[in-house]
């Protein structure tokens, strides 16, 4: 059965009619499939949630143990049946390579296979399982960085930039804006892989999710809370990771001679860095850049591509030019800045 007959964009997000499940709904619903734990995809308050074990743990860390009435964990590669038992929708999770626990969701109904990839990337990331290309009729992709200007450099290069700056300005505290979930832990591992084994200092908002990653077997090395440092002048020449909102906050005033950095895919656009008064932009993204999006779609070679949020115009144009059948879903509510 044609996919658009049983899977449609609604005000609350993408809705599977045949299963009565929403995927990453943006307001409270009865049944939700969650691709990953970023706040704009994983809300609290749904009745019934299906997600990977780490995603459930992330949601419980954020929204409490009662983040949903019933919770069902699904491992990568395992399947469940949803909807009418006599006419079921089969649901399988596959790794998306975006953050810890991030999943692509394969929905299969009456012989049609649809992959909802959520947010995903193709660059190596030691904090999560790598993206798997799944054969399907419809591939649903994000388009956050879908413009040919976006080229994400390897994370090592950006971490080196940070270490270089640290050597150049040893008197300055390097305050790096990173999103607490995913980017933070990936940056830490990026720095560790370059042999940086000093303690890395955390803003309070980063702590719980770092602990959660460590609980899932990801060793982040020595982390110290800024709050536990009584003499803040000790932070000169050190790296402090904080949420982007804290960069210009009063909180940062206690730090010595702050050099503001930020790790985000948007940092490639100078004006974006400037808008946040960032002195050291680090281009680190947990999404695909333009080339990675095209390579992925080419590799999967689906019958059709549906585009969710981001720069859908450009991707739609490019795919149409290549003769790939594509449409934009115009889903709203996914905050393009919140998670990268």
């Amino acid at each position, binding site marked *: 059965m044609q996919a658009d007959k049983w899977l449609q964009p609604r005000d609350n997000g993408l809705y599977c009619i045949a299963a009565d499940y929403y995927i990453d709904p943006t307001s409270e619903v009865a049944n939700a499939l969650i691709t990953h734990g970023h706040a704009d995809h994983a809300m609290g308050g749904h009745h019934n949630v299906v997600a990977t074990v780490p995603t459930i743990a992330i949601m419980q860390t954020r929204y409490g143990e009662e983040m949903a009435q019933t919770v069902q964990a699904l491992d990568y590669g395992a399947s469940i049946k949803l909807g009418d038992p006599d006419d079921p929708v089969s649901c399988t999770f596959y790794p998306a390579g975006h953050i810890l626990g991030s999943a692509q969701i394969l929905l299969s109904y009456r012989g049609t296979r649809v992959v909802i990839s959520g947010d995903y990337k193709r660059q190596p990331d030691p904090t999560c399982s790598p993206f798997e290309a799944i054969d399907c009729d419809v591939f649903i992709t994000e388009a956050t960085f879908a*413009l*040919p*200007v*976006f*080229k994400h450099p390897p994370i090592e290069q950006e971490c080196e930039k940070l270490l270089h700056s640290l050597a150049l300005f040893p008197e300055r505290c390097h305050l790096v804006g990173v999103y607490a979930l995913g980017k933070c832990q990936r940056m830490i591992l990026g720095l560790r892989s370059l042999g940086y084994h000093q303690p890395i200092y955390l803003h309070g908002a980063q702590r719980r999710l770092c602990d959660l990653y460590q609980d899932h077997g990801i060793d982040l090395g020595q982390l110290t809370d800024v709050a536990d440092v009584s003499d803040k002048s000790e932070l000169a020449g050190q790296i402090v990771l904080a949420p982007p909102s804290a960069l210009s906050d009063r909180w940062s005033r206690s730090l010595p001679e702050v050099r503001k950095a930020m790790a985000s895919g948007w940092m*490639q*656009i*100078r*004006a*974006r*860095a*400037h*808008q946040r*008064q*960032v*002195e*050291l*932009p680090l281009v680190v993204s947990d999404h695909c850049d333009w080339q990675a999006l095209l390579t992925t779609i080419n590799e999967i070679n689906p019958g059709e591509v549906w585009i969710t949020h981001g*720069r859908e*115009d*450009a991707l739609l*144009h*490019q795919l149409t*030019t290549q003769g790939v059948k594509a449409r934009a879903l115009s889903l*709203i509510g996914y905050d393009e800045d919140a998670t990268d």
Partner: protein
Amino acid sequence: MDAFSQLLQQLYFTSSNNEKSRLLRYYLANTADPDRGWAIAALAGTLKFEFFKRNAVKNLMLERVDPDLFAMSYDYVGEMSETVAHLWPDTTSNIELPGLADLIDQFRQANREQVKALLVHYLSGMTAEQRWSLLKLGTRGLRVGLSARSVKRILAEYGQVPVSEIETLWHALSPPYRELFDWLEGRADKPDITGAVTFHPVMLSHPLPDNSAERLTVSDWQVEYKYDGIRVQLVVTEQGKALYSRTGDDISESFPDVLSGVDECGVIDGELLIIHDGEIDSFNALQQRLNRKKPAKKLITQKPAGMVVYDLLTDGNQDITALSLTERRQRLEYWLSRAEARHLQLSPLLPVSNNKQLQQAYTDAAADPGVEGLMLKRKDSSYQPGRPSGQWFKWKREAQHLDAVIMYAQRGHGKRSSFYSDFTFGVWHDNTLLPIGKAYSGFTDEELKKLDNWVRRNAVGRFGPVREVKKELVVEVAFDAIHPSSRHKSGVALRFPRFHRIRWDKPASEADTLTNAKALIIT
């Protein structure tokens, strides 16, 4: 070139002015002539190329990328140099780059075709950051958060001389500024510029603070009209003559009628206007002459340009900027009587001797369509380049207001890149909205975010980079004046429209009509 590229990157991402000054002074101290002089030229906007232009770059890019993707990328990034820097196909090997002066020389020597080849050669062998720096050179206006004035201030700090001395010399010198550095570094005397036909930096005014007119001691102030033209400077020396805009651009070719018949030496400050036998025409009339590089004879006859003169900086060969305004005014009157130029007329002094008369003069000026308000200048003020405080004030007519409906939105550039920040608004006429103007200022950063979000949620169509939006949001726009205009479908044009308030609460149907708008025209 690489050192210069690194300097630009650092300047761009540094927000503190002191830090910027330190970076630039470090560069000047550690870079040899002529590279550093060309860097100064690039930063201060005095570097020009004949064939290395924005359009040449764009065309080369379009040979390498789908035009629609280019347009979408440019729309998103908001700046040509950066768009091209990212879009240009990467090659694996970076090339050895020449010094800045050498590179600039190559571009200046090259003809149109050779410039293209040079661009392809360098762009293909550079990193994205270097590409950005190279393209910035060619497109003028580096926009790294350092104004031409700041560059001069930093040069003054570098040489420990007063910035006014740099200002005075500046327009008589040219890149790579060897004689300037020789002087700043104590190896030579200050360059002698007597008699050179050169722009002198102008003195600017502040807006008169609200409710301060009644507290002025009127006898200390010279009161004149504020004209609705453009500020210009006429320079006549034994070596030649020229007309400059207030930013120092030579606009002599556009206004040969202003220069003709003036041979009396001096530097004259005044307002450029269309003047028919002593009668001043509207700004609209002047607009037909602006941006015409070489106007046709017919246009010159129909719209003859002239000047209302109000200050004298150099009398003959003598610099008189240190004299008081009252003394300069006497010199100006005498200069004008010697010049005998019919198209130059003196800005009359308004006979005001007390605060009540001052208020009345302001009220009269506000009702006069030919002027924008009053100028108040301290009689004892010397002529100081820049905007010294407490010396000159402009007292403009109160802004007028209309409730208009947002119709289209476009993304901004520079620091507003990616935000929808340029808005076209309209008023009602026969149950449809007619656009009457565009505004991109007057809102706070917080409001800009809300507006941007509103546009994204309420877009109904697109025309290239322009988004059409639902006709639902009312803004109270403020503007200096409204004039009849045949160039706009609505038949009116606004002077300096900006947002006054966003009326999230007001239904679009209650916005103003074209009839309301036309009623505000002062005749």
